[in-house]
Structure formats: structure tokens, C-alpha cells
């Protein structure tokens, strides 16, 4: 079942040198699955994620054939209606918990706020829900964490808090924009596993943005490979090694592998034609 369908998405920024196109005609669909978006830095992954939430700030421009969330075209919604979508139906976890939590508000206040914005309930209820959610991300002393400020948390804690906070109103889709890049390798796994469990338990759709092809291959069901604002290849994660596009192959070859050790990693050679070729559609026919 398709939750979200994006057709022909463009994100443009007027600059002094003319219009810069960060995302150029991207199309894909998302069901109750884990969709990976991979690409090098600047390929437009984050802008794609933010454009779905309509969070591209002026003077940036978003254009799309449609961005349909269960039958509603988000592009047609007013800003006020869009606010009901944000958080409640589509949510997002960002890269670095150090910066994505408000430094002068307690974690409790920020969590309860996320809940109270969408649910018409009491503070007591919001508090209980926040505590429950913190427990769900394996935080053992939620009472203390609620009273704490973000700077008192480690990175791994911070990111689990972010996940708890963003899932508290029970959204249908979570966009995770490099949720573990800022974390130690040792806690990356924990955070990913927690996120994975919650997403699966709740039957959510996940858009997982990363530049780490290995991670995405392992963690996702389907992968979009982005290059210079376009999708150059779409494939199932378990068949990534069959990828045909030279860029994808290049990405795969530039990764160190234990089973196939080599002296030098191959540097990626680019071809201007990649950027010019039309975007590959990531829309999956409804099963």
C-alpha cells in the first residue's frame, strides 16, 4: 500500500550565478517500507526530505507534479493545513542531536510540546506519554531525562530522545536524515535498531537518508541512488550488487570490504552524462 507518492519534485534556489537546482525531477513512492536515499554530499538528499515536509525556506522554491500523502496532495495544502501534517503524519529526525534540540528548554518540555501540539489532552497525559515513549527508546531513567537539558545528554541519548520526540504523535512516515552520522560507531547500531523496531512495530514508512551505502543496503528494503539532484538508479537493497549504473558501482567499489580486501580503494570517476540523464522513477506499482 502506498503511503506517499512524489512525482517530479524540483527544489531550486536563486543565487547570484542564476538558479541552482538542488533536486531535479525526483519521483518515488513509499509504502510501509524502509526506503533508503543514498548519494554523495550535495546530491540533494536532505532537500528532498525537507521538500516533502514543505520546509524549504524562501527564497528556495519547491515544484512538484504532486506529493500525495494517502490521497491528499501536500502541494495544494495551505500552510495551516500543512502544520497538521508535520509531526502528526510525517515527522523527521535530523543529523545531530546536539543542534536539533533546543538548548534552553528541558527535554520534558520539548517532548510534551510535540504531543500537545496535536493531541487535545492534559499535561499529565502528555507527561505520561512522554515517559512511556522515552522508555520505548530504552532510556532507563526517563524521569530524570525529562528534567534534564540537552547539553546534559550524550549524543546517543540525544538521538534516542529525538526519535522518541518525533514518534510521540504517532506519525505514519518518518524521514531520518542521516540520523546516526554524528554518533560514535558503537552507539550507531543501538540507535538504528531502536528506530527500526519502532518503525516496524508501528507499521510506519521510513525514508532513510544516508551517504553510507553499506548501512543502507543492510538496513533498508529499497534504495534510491541520487546524483546531482537526480535519482540515477533504484534497486532493492538485497540486489545492490547487481546495480548497473556506473555511479552506484563506483560507490560500491569505493567501499572497503572484508571479504574482498584490496590495497587501494578506487576513486570515483564521474561522467557529466550522469547529471544530464533524466531521473529514474522510484515509484513502485501498488502490490
Amino acid at each position, binding site marked *: 500500500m502506498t503511503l506517499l507518492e512524489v512525482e517530479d519534485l524540483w527544489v531550486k534556489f536563486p543565487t547570484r550565478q542564476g538558479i541552482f537546482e538542488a533536486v531535479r525531477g525526483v519521483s518515488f513512492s513509499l509504502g510501509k517500507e524502509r526506503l533508503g536515499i543514498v548519494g554523495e554530499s550535495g546530491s540533494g538528499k536532505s532537500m528532498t526530505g525537507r521538500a516533502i515536509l514543505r520546509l524549504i525556506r524562501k527564497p528556495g522554491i519547491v515544484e512538484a507534479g504532486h506529493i500525495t500523502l494517502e490521497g491528499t496532495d501536500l502541494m495544494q495544502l495551505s500552510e495551516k493545513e500543512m502544520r497538521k501534517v*508535520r509531526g502528526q503524519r510525517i515527522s523527521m529526525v535530523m543529523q545531530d542531536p546536539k*543542534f536539533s*534540540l*533546543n538548548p534552553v528548554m528541558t527535554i520534558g518540555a520539548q517532548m510534551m510540546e510535540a504531543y500537545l501540539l496535536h493531541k487535545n489532552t492534559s499535561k499529565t497525559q502528555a507527561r505520561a506519554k512522554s515517559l512511556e515513549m522515552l522508555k520505548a527508546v*530504552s532510556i532507563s531513567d526517563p524521569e530524570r531525562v525529562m528534567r534534564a537539558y540537552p547539553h546534559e545528554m550524550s549524543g546517543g541519548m540525544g538521538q534516542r530522545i529525538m526519535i522518541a520526540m518525533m514518534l510521540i504523535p504517532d506519525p505514519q512516515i518518518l524521514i531520518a536524515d542521516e540520523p546516526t552520522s554524528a554518533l560514535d560507531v558503537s552507539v550507531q547500531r543501538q540507535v538504528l535498531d531502536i528506530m527500526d523496531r519502532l518503525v516496524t512495530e508501528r507499521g510506519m514508512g521510513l525514508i532513510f537518508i544516508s551517504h553510507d551505502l553499506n548501512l543502507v543496503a543492510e538496513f533498508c528494503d529499497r534504495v534510491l541512488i541520487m546524483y546531482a539532484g537526480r535519482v540515477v538508479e533504484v534497486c532493492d537493497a538485497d540486489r545492490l550488487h547487481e546495480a548497473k549504473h556506473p555511479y552506484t558501482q563506483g560507490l560500491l567499489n569505493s567501499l572497503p570490504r572484508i571479504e574482498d580486501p584490496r590495497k587501494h580503494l578506487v576513486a570515483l570517476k564521474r561522467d557529466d552524462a550522469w547529471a544530464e540523464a533524466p531521473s529514474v522513477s522510484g515509484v513502485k506499482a501498488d502490490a
Partner: protein
Amino acid sequence: MADAPVTTERRSTAPLFSWAKPIVFTLGSVAVTMLGLLFVTFIIGRVMPIDPVLAVLGERASQEAYDATYKAMGLDQPLLVQFFYYLTDVLRGDFGMSILNARPVSEDIARVFPATLELATIGIIIGVVLGVPLGVVAAVKRGSWIDQIARVVALVGYSMPIFWLGLMGLLVFYGILGWVGGPGRLDIFYEDIVPARTGMILVDSAIAGDWSVFRNAFSHIVLPASLLGYYSLAYISRMTRSFMLEQLSAEYVTTARVKGMSEWAVIWVHVFKNIRVQLITVIALSYANLLEGSVLTEIIFSWPGIGSYITTSLLSADMNAVLGGTVVVGLVFIVLNVFSDLLYRVFDPRSK
């Protein structure tokens, strides 16, 4: 394994007297700063090419009288002892006698400082109430017409000489339109009606319940206070704008938007909380500047405040008065600094 509860956070140390240390530290630094200030004013008093004895006795004093006074003033003592005397005097609120009117300087200051305090307080209120929202809106609507207006307002504030605006204001609103009272704190007819309790006429007349005096005082203060308010508004709005711009690009702002908050809630609930600390420092600084007594404003509006007091004393070489006034102004700075420091501790959890 992944879901194993993790308690790696260090427990924040909260011993019984965690609040005592900053207080002791603050008081200590206040004392040291105060001492430094008094030392400086003391030294200035000594190196000025004004003979303190002659200043008291007049030019034609006899040699005996001169010697006697010299001794009586403790000037034959070593410098350190003299400083000690000066210190104890000042701590008792004794700044010596004014040469000009042969009254204790402390009495003069008690009279002129409230006049400045009253003016500066209304000025800063105007500056904050208008300047902060203007700066916030200018930042949020960056590049819009409102931002342009804010820019012009600030530019005029930075570049227009205050005496010119003051004189123009008097000419238009007092001279031509007659909407406000003229120079001075009250019309002659209203003087000395309400007893001076605080020295601030608005407050005193309100306490006495004499609203006609209050109205008259208000009509006199409104123009100079607006003028000062305008100048602090120019500064405060610019600073607010740049603090806001800095915060608006922060990632937590995106988080708040992702949650589905309205833009104004994002700004006032999330962003504004993050600029409070910097804003307090800026406001305290502007307030201190106004409390120093804006000499030009006080002169144009014949406002008997501390700025014009220090200036006239300086011009007539009345050193005790100058030093007394300087100490008071310095004290104001110290107090405001401590105050903004304390608020900083309250508002920024990272400072603990």
C-alpha cells in the same frame, strides 16, 4: 543487546550549597571592582592640578589656615592611609563638600540622580518595548519593507546628533504644537507641591495621589524620554535582529517546525528563549548608558540630572562633586552587570 538500558550519563552533582558558590564569587568580584573604581577616582583626585586645600579655603587664605586645613584633610599622611580615609568616607556615603554650593555632595547626588533615573527608566522601557519586537520582526521578515523601515530607524538613530533631534522635538511638539511641557521637570506652578520621597516626581506624585502634578511631570518627561528611548531603540532593535538571525538558522528551529508548530510559536517559544541572555546584556548596557546621564539631553531639556551635574562640576573644578558623581555612575554599571549576570544564570541552563 541494542535495547539494553543505558545509564552512562553522569549524575549531575547537586550538593547542598551549589548556589552559594556563585553568590560568594559574585559578591567578591563586586567588592574587587568597587575597590578598583574607588582607587581610580582617588588617584584622579590626587593628580588633578587642583589644590584641594585652596579649593576649600579660596585663593587668599593665610599660610596658617592653609597648614591647618592641610592637616585636617589628612593630606600630610601617606597616600595609602589617605586612600583608607577616602574609602571609609565613601562607604559611609560621604563624598565631601561641594565647593560650589558648600553642601555635601551626597545630598546633591541624592537630588540629581533620581531625576536621571526617572528619565532613563522611561527611556529604556520605550527602547525595549518597541525595539525588541521591531528587531524580531525585522529578522523574521528579513528583506521585507518592515526590515527596511527598521534599518532606516536605526540608521537615523545612529547618525542623527541627539541635540539636533532634541531641539527639533522641542520646537515642534512644545513650541508649535504645544502638546508637551517645555524644558525642566515641572512647570513652576507645580513645583514643591508633592513631598520628595523618591526624588522621582512621577512616583512621588503618584504616592501623594496628586494627579495634576503627575500629568504635568509626565508632559515634561515624555519628550526627553522618547528621545532617549529612540536612541536605545535604534541600538536594541539592531542587536535583536542580528541575534535572531543567528538563531533562526539553527537546527532546533527546524525541529520545532517539523513538530508542526506555527511560525510565531516557533519564534516566540523557541528562538526568543535563546536570545534572552544576549538581549539582557544589551539592554543592561543601554540602561547603564542612559543612567550615566546623557549630558546633551539633560542640557537641552534643562533636566537636573547626574550628567549635567558632573559636567557643570567639572567645568567649575568642583572635584568632590565630580568624583562623587563618578563613583555613583560606576556603581550603577557594577550593579547592572551583576544583575545581568544573575539573569544569565537563571535563563541559560548551560551556565550552571
